[in-house]
């Protein structure tokens, strides 16, 4: 992975209403991951409880925030963001990462089948276990999913830094979102590439998730390998300048 590219400074949107104007260009830097919305746009609030709170119970800041939202522009909510009580941003992100060619229907179907398979496997184990063990068996597929991904997140990562004509693998702290991304990416890649071709994705994924939940399996092994490499290259930490 190359050194992270510095995001260019945001453009000034004084004239046009929210549409970006000319961006300040610095030599040698290209802007990546930007949005057409200006900085004054607020994110959409889809939480029903937020709107149901009676006015008497609001604190001063909340009242101020509500007044502010009345005057500001609000971004359009994406199609995947709903006010459903069952919505989970981690599950949505994982579904998006599994999606190929924009086929969200298939990706969502695979995700729901995975959760169902995890649940059924755990129920089988529960019915086969004795009364004492039954208390330890977790049957909620969502807790298993979250815990498994948490167990796969690396704490420290490696970055290739070019110094005097050679690339060195330097240990570097990772941002939260990078860690979550890596966990999900490793999980999906493991299931896609290392398993038998005829095995279906929900089956593979459920197996891997259950293994990661118990801190076993190839994805957790990959995380530990990453940690060991970082530990081994401890001496190169000085090459990092940020």
């Amino acid at each position, binding site marked *: 992975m190359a050194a992270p590219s510095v995001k260019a400074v945001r453009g000034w949107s004084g004239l046009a209403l929210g549409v970006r104007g000319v961006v300040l260009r610095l030599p040698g830097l290209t802007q990546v991951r930007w949005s057409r919305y200006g900085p004054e746009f607020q994110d959409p609030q889809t939480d*029903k409880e937020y709107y149901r709170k009676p006015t008497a119970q609001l604190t001063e800041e909340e009242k101020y925030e509500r007044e502010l939202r009345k005057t500001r522009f609000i971004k359009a909510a994406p199609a995947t963001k709903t006010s*459903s*009580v*069952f919505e989970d941003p981690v599950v949505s992100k994982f579904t998006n990462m599994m999606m190929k060619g924009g086929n969200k229907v298939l990706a969502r179907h695979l995700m*729901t*089948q995975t*959760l*169902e398979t995890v*649940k*059924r496997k755990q*129920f*089988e184990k529960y*019915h086969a276990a004795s009364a004492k063990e039954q208390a330890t068996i977790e*049957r*909620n*597929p*969502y807790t298993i999913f979250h815990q498994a991904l948490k167990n796969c997140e690396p704490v420290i990562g490696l970055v290739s830094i070019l110094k005097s004509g050679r690339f060195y693998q330097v240990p570097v702290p990772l941002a939260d979102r990078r860690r979550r991304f890596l966990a999900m990416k490793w999980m999906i890649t493991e299931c896609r590439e290392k398993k038998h071709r005829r095995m279906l994705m929900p089956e593979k994924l459920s197996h891997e998730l259950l293994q990661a939940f118990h801190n076993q399996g190839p994805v957790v092994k990959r995380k530990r390998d990453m940690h060991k490499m970082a530990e081994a290259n401890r001496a190169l930490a000085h090459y990092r300048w940020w």
Partner: protein
Amino acid sequence: MRERSGTPNFREVGRERNYGRQFESTSCSLETLRGSSALYSAGTMLKGMTRLISRAHKAKHGEQQEGQHYNIPHQDLKTVFPHGLPPRFVMQVKTFNEACLMVRKPALELLHYLKNTNFAHPAVRYILYGEKGTGKTLSLCHVVHFCAKQDWLILHVPDAHRWVKNCRDLLQSTYNKQRLDQPLEASTWLKNFRTSNERFLSQIKVQEKYVWNKRESTEKGSPLGDVVEQGITRVRNATDAVGIVLKELRRQSSCGIFHLLVAVDGVNALWGRTTLKREDKSPIAPEELAFIYNLRKMVKNDWNGGAIVLTLSQTGSLFKPRTAYMPQELLGEEGFNALDPFIPILVSNYNPKEFQSCIQYYLENNWLQHEKAHTEGGMKELLFLSNANPGQLERLCAYL
């Protein structure tokens, strides 16, 4: 959403048919023949019932039990349902370690009619129809289980669509050169038939001599079990064995040794189109398949001593639009004429009481694991997303 009127409009004004009851509702003739009462034997069937909130006492299946679940013991599952349960229900049975069916109005209506059948009259045809996922197959299974408990002979064809598509080997029939045999499907069906009706196979005797080939034949007066064994061991003659079984049962049902229940799921397959082709790529019509030809004769009401319960199904059907659910649309002209005097029974989505009962059942079994699913908002959302459709609700709750 398609608007459904109270009394579905089956035909144009010209044709006049009486769809009312064709039998008297006087005392059932079961008692004279069977000796036991027409209700379930309560004692052995009740499991150790610690969870009683939504469970029905099996002895009484009346109006007050509507919406409650009743349990089918595992032993019964193996004998009565070697085939015939929908695959998602089989998964649920495996996960929960119990088979619980909800008692619903269409099934109750059918059971009432069956309890009052007059076995001297020709067999009455009942057709369960409804939109996709409303519970037609499970209502049929409920009725089949009831009749099995009453010691009827069950002729259960789990999914007629499986016979008109995806068939690997088709042999030219030895009995009739124009027709085609399906050895694999016929032999599996015979095995399941044997499992569910063991006790009758030795009692019923064949009334004709059947010659299979130069060396094998079944004599007159030998038990029906022999024909079934022949069909299972000699897979080439399996379809003919099925035809013989159907013919003998039809002939002998009026004698009064047994009551015959013909239960066919997806009966619209018998009069639709097939996706099967001969070696020269010419399409095969359903009547050219020997099994379909014999089954059509079975579903005609020219025999007495039992009942015929049928289900329409769009799910496995070929060349029918997804929104079609009425008998006229799914059966077509030919099929409708063939089945014409029948009693239609509409199976619809859950009413609020049944919906609550279903959710209660899932909560009792801890199937709804999501924290928000237990809340008021969660249940309202489930109702909205599934529209009280039993199939959709089951699929939603599977991953929550």
